[in-house]
């Protein structure tokens, strides 16, 4: 497999590599053969800052199955975070959520 399945998105935050944290500029999601994990094809996540050089990178290789579980976990956490944000800010939230909070 030598795919062109790749998604590049903006990333704001920091990532850790070794004992160093670096600011992020983008996240890259791809599906291709693993370079490190003893697996066939994997979802790869690369958190990068291309302005800082090639070594400003935190890379992850996941099986498709556990990538789906991660996506579900992200969805749950983000939904809960949106709820929290709505509660704290007190505006922009749908009425149902405001009442529930």
């Amino acid at each position, binding site marked *: *497999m*030598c*795919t*062109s399945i*790749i998604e*590049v998105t903006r990333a704001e935050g920091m990532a850790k590599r070794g004992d160093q944290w670096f600011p992020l500029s*983008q996240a*890259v999601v*791809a599906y*291709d*053969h*693993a*370079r*490190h994990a*003893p*697996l*066939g094809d994997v979802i*790869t996540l*690369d958190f*990068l800052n*291309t302005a800082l*050089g*090639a*070594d400003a*990178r935190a*890379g992850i290789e996941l099986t498709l199955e556990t990538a789906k579980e991660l996506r579900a976990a992200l969805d749950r956490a983000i939904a809960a975070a949106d709820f929290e944000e709505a509660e704290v800010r007190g505006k922009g939230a749908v009425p149902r959520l405001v009442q529930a909070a």
Partner: protein
Amino acid sequence: MSFYRGMTCENVTLTGDDGTKITAYVARPAGPGPFPGVVLIHHLPGWSELYIETTRRFAHHGYLAICANLYEREGGSDANPDDVAAKVRAEGGIADAQMVGDTAAAVKWMRAQPDNNGKVGLIGSCSGGRHAFIYACQKHDVDAVVELWGGGVVMAKEELNAKKPTAPIDMTKDLAAPLLGLFGNDDRAPSPEQVNQHEAELKKHGKAHEFHRYDGAGHGFFYWHRPLYRPEQAMDGWNKIWAFFGKYLAK
């Protein structure tokens, strides 16, 4: 000479596409030569240890071998090849034209070596297999080409972009060297159907080629450090390569 030939290895600097300086790893067999030359085009994971080892493997078998760092611009030759490859992936790969320019520099370097026998073969796997095919279609200065499971030889119109403006399969009529292709039937990029399309186009244009398709193998079945490795198919494949280069690169 002992069964196990000695060799010397070094990094050299080439003047690549657009005059950019790029690094290339060279493995030179011991002895006076002359040696047939092999230019290696690395795969999508970059100028990796696997490719450096494979360069030495060719020297061990009596070939003067060179492998240029096609990702030099994205991180230099000192950066971890893995990180550089991730950066290249984020940028949508390298431009085909740039690859041709860099590979031309490696071929030129080879032809300038006094211990080259005047023959130069080209080999690549994965994206490098695709690149090797493209090169042999566009530049007519290699004597044989080996494409190992080149992904993206067959491309849909919507996959074309500024870096990859033409589907390699549409270059087939210009192929100017005999081609050996090795493929795994469990691969999905290229799929067996795409391999069939690739071969049909070669036949249509009367191009000298031999394709071998392996059952029980997928993508990258030569990669001994990956679960994709298939020893039986890989060793048969290597024997096909030695026979092919032995035939076309002998003086």
